[in-house]
């Protein structure tokens, strides 16, 4: 019985996994096609000769190194900053008593619902007034807060036994120390999860960096992808090669961080011997 259900679960997961994997596989395969044979699939979607040169072209066609460094800088700083501000806020909502707590929280949740497109231009005006156009500040500072992250973290923090907070207090930890020494390490999986989500969002951000910066110097990878489409058509293999270059670092990061995402499972007390 148990074997059967396990088998069924595997079957389900594998089917789903194929669906998830397929488009990605297509991306990689396309990126290795010569330009002229694209889109004549599916008959020969395994190219006879793999065009690794596509990747070389990608790197030549646009200043990808620069983009890459910018993306790296923007992503790390926004993620860290966002984590910082969100952790503080989530902590305050979880453990501190203050006037207007529920109201403020409700308000923040409401802000989660604001369509971003609507805010783009007013924000650009603000950025311009701050003289931040074409600076890293424009790419980073507005993203240092995320309501979604606050809500998620708050939710996770709430399910932690309160006695830990009390114990830490008695042990002489201030709120600040409790936050960093106890709350953060014990919630590593969820924190890693939201951080990863943020990394991806910020790595893939397109409109914002495009609007907020004017010169190549500050452009990020997704903006770089523009080089491969034009008004008249798209060079699919190159675009896909470039896309792979954009996505790959994220995947690697994700695989590396998975250890933390799964922490809850591996640390459970009855590991190994549980059925």
């Amino acid at each position: 019985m148990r074997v059967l259900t396990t088998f069924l679960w595997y079957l389900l997961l594998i089917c789903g996994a194929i669906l998830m994997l397929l488009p990605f596989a297509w991306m990689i395969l396309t990126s290795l096609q010569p330009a002229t044979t694209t889109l004549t699939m599916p008959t020969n979607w395994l190219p006879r000769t793999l065009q690794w040169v596509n990747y070389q072209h990608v790197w030549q066609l646009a200043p990808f190194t620069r983009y890459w460094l910018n993306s790296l800088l923007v992503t790390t700083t926004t993620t860290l900053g966002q984590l910082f501000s969100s952790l503080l806020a989530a902590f305050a909502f979880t453990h501190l008593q203050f006037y207007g707590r529920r109201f403020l929280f409700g308000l923040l949740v409401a802000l989660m619902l604001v369509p971003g497109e609507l805010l783009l231009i007013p924000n650009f005006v603000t950025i311009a007034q701050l003289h931040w156009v074409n600076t890293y500040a424009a790419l980073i500072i507005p993203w240092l807060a995320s309501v979604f992250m606050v809500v998620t973290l708050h939710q996770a923090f709430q399910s932690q036994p309160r006695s830990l907070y009390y114990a830490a207090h008695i042990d002489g930890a201030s709120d600040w120390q409790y936050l960093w020494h106890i709350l953060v390490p014990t919630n590593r999986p969820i924190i890693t999860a939201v951080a990863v989500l943020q990394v991806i969002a910020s790595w893939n951000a397109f409109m914002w960096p495009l609007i907020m910066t004017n010169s190549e110097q500050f452009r990020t990878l997704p903006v770089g992808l523009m080089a491969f489409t034009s008004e008249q058509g798209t060079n699919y293999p190159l675009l896909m090669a470039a896309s792979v270059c954009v996505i790959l670092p994220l995947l690697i990061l994700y695989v590396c961080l998975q250890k933390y995402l799964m922490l809850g499972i591996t640390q459970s007390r009855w590991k190994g011997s549980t059925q």
Partner: protein
Amino acid sequence: MLNTKPTLKSTRKALLYLAPLLIITLVFTVWPLIHALLMSSYVRYNYFTNHVGAIGWANFAYLWHDPLFHLALRNTLCLVFVAMPVTVALALVIALGLNRIPRLARFFQTIYFLPFVTATIATGLVWNWIFRLDGGLLNASLQHLGISPIDWLNDPHVALLALIVVCVWQGLGFNVVLFLAGLNRIDAKYMRVAQLDGANAWQRFTNVTWPLLLPMTVLIVINTAVTNFKVFDQAFALFHGAAGPGNSALTLMFYLYQKFYVDNQFTVAAASGVVLFCLVGLLTLLTYGYFRWQRRRLGGRS
């Protein structure tokens, strides 16, 4: 602590903790939002010179009479009410599966996360390839099953469906990760007692996992609904910059985009943004209320 009441001092301290968040949201979300709200009431407004002709409901009246807006509203609601439940349910099933199987969980998790990692541009193209009429993967498979091919992307009757599929596909990984994080927070001991108490797998799920997961589920449902309300990128990429064949997949966000950036009808765009915001807010309230009710029904504290 256990029974502390808020005081001025504690409020000041909390505000210090909240300061980074509040400052940034005030400047970059609240302020522009107010701006948009104001703008939605301007009539004969010169966006660039900031000349306001009059103040009134004209923009909302415009929306009220605009068949395109109606279409966008219909499509968006359809998208939300189909894509959101499907995404959440699938994500939950997958997360439960991943949480259950002893081996390869990580491997699968990575794969399910792929769609979320993939940038929207690439996703659009890939799905374009899957859905296309000639040589599209989906149609090729359908043909094997003896079903005549469907022009998913150019048939106005099915284009929205295609968009829904893409949205579900793309939102899945993110929600799986969130669900997994939620599942991990449930102490294994509850599963053990429940098993001892004679609960079978399904009962364990409905009576223990589900109620304990409920807070996370609320979050996911609301977030997914909000995301689906704001679908734009996916449609833009999937339909090559159009809102589907003959506008058949026009979403509210797409409408807003067109009004703002293409038609230069800034005030109408702002008004549609306000409508969108109110709708999402309403839906969120409903969701929240529903789950509160359910939670109470399941016997939990509210």
